[in-house]
């Protein structure tokens, strides 16, 4: 059923008894042309674009829990394309442009809110690095502004300008950046993929890959064996586990990142702000909660929960950047398992196994990539060649030294 204000009214009159399920709950077929493992944002988007853009409709998304139970449903919802390296800018800007049309394309209000993303800087070297980055964005036709302290004050007046250990000198602002309602992205793509014929198979965990003569045949799951011509892996924090099923090791470690939400408050913050002297970034959700996060907990983990030391570190940053936040009360905090790659940039590539494709390494920044990731991954699977905008995200770049290392931290994932 098409979503619109009119339809909403019509259903209101009938007590909302006529809404259809947003997606079917099919029993899996015995085989598909393409199987996507992972019902997160990327997996669902991939399924949608495979069908919609590349005409492959005999597909299924296999999700071990419920769709959106992974990182797409637990992230801090920030979208931006404010990168420094051209390969990243190009790709994330594609995503940004897709976000800008997303609601109309999906007929689903994912609440894309371009309220601006502001990264603060507190020293000259930081200013210079941001200048290099902002200029790279502008060279790519992406919007970026370098604000001085007064510019920042005009935008977000109640930051700590006067009593700070690390004074705010200015900020890099991307006005087109912002937030998107996380769950709605999963549901919007899920519903759209379902409408295009894809099967969303929930509570279906992939436990093994069947490979013969270095060609993928299908997958073992908790709901039985399912055959496939091609298998796309989009399981974020579980990427290494899936790769292990094919005997592969990845340039990835799984780490936990925490997120926090406060009680609902009347509007206090209109922009996404990132602290440059500590680990803290924050935005306010439409419901009124301040949604924020900080650094990784720092050690390999497959447990979706965080450590107290990181909670303190994040809140120290919060208080130092925005002293009025002190009395906002944290309502809940949780963790997600991130596929941290060795250079902090993603991988969208074929693997050494025929028919097995990999979408991984999204670190803490893959939510904003969702539309472009889905589109480019679908392109790769359908055409067996990378989409130009994602062509740099190859697996062999590490060995070659063609790393895409925004932060210059080298192969230590917990530092990216």
């Amino acid at each position, binding site marked *: 059923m098409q979503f619109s204000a009119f339809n909403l009214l019509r259903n209101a009159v009938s007590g909302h008894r006529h809404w259809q399920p947003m997606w079917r709950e099919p029993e899996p077929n015995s085989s598909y042309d393409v199987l996507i493992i992972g019902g997160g944002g990327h997996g669902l988007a991939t399924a949608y674009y495979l069908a919609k853009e590349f005409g492959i409709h005999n597909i299924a998304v296999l999700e071990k829990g419920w769709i959106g139970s992974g990182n797409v449903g637990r992230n801090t919802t920030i979208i931006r394309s404010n990168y420094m390296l051209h390969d990243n800018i190009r790709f994330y800007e594609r995503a940004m442009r897709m976000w800008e049309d997303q609601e109309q394309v999906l007929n689903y209000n994912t609440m894309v809110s371009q309220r601006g993303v502001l990264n603060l800087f507190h020293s000259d070297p930081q200013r210079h690095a941001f200048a290099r980055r902002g200029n790279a964005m502008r060279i790519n036709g992406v919007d970026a502004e370098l604000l001085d302290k007064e510019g920042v004050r005009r935008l977000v007046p109640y930051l700590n300008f006067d009593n700070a250990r690390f004074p705010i000198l200015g900020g890099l602002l991307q006005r087109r950046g912002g937030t998107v309602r996380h769950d709605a992205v999963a549901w919007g793509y899920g519903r759209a993929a379902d409408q295009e014929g894809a099967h969303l198979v929930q509570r279906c965990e992939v436990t093994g890959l069947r490979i013969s003569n270095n060609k993928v045949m299908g997958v073992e799951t908790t709901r039985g064996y399912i055959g496939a011509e091609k298998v796309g892996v989009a399981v974020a924090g*579980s990427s*290494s*586990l899936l790769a*292990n099923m094919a005997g592969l*090791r*990845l*340039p*990835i*470690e*799984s780490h936990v990142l925490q997120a926090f939400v406060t009680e609902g408050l009347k509007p206090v913050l209109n922009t996404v702000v990132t602290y440059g002297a500590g680990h803290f970034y924050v935005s306010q959700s439409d419901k009124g909660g301040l949604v924020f996060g900080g650094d990784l907990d*720092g*050690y*390999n*983990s*497959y*447990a979706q929960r965080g*450590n107290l*030391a990181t909670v303190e570190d994040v809140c120290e940053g919060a208080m130092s950047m925005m002293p009025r936040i002190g009395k906002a009360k944290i309502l809940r905090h949780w963790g997600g398992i991130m596929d941290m790659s*060795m250079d902090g940039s993603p991988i969208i590539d074929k693997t050494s196994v025929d028919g097995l494709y990999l979408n991984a390494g999204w670190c803490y920044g893959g939510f904003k990539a969702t539309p472009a990731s889905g589109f480019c991954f679908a392109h790769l699977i359908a055409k067996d060649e990378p989409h130009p905008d994602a062509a740099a995200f190859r697996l062999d770049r*590490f*060995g070659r030294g063609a790393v895409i290392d925004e932060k210059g931290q080298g*192969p*230590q*994932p*917990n530092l990216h």
Partner: protein
Amino acid sequence: MIIPCPYCGRRHSSEFSYLGDASLMRRPDFEASEEMWSDYIYLRDNRAGNHKELWRHSFGCGAWLIVERNTVTHDVLSVVPAKDQS
């Protein structure tokens, strides 16, 4: 998490720095192939379950330690000084 440092006793994990998989101790020889090298530098088992990894008690005695820890439950199973194993 509490990590029992063989020297200092039970300490909170926030006193330690993390490096990663203990396989980083097996640095290849210069003569080894570039492929072996890039495996060493970039690839990880990244296990869900028991995992041997390098931590340094950087706010304590400063020693590098090999910690065996479960990455699913966060249980710490054993801790030994790295220098005894290298």
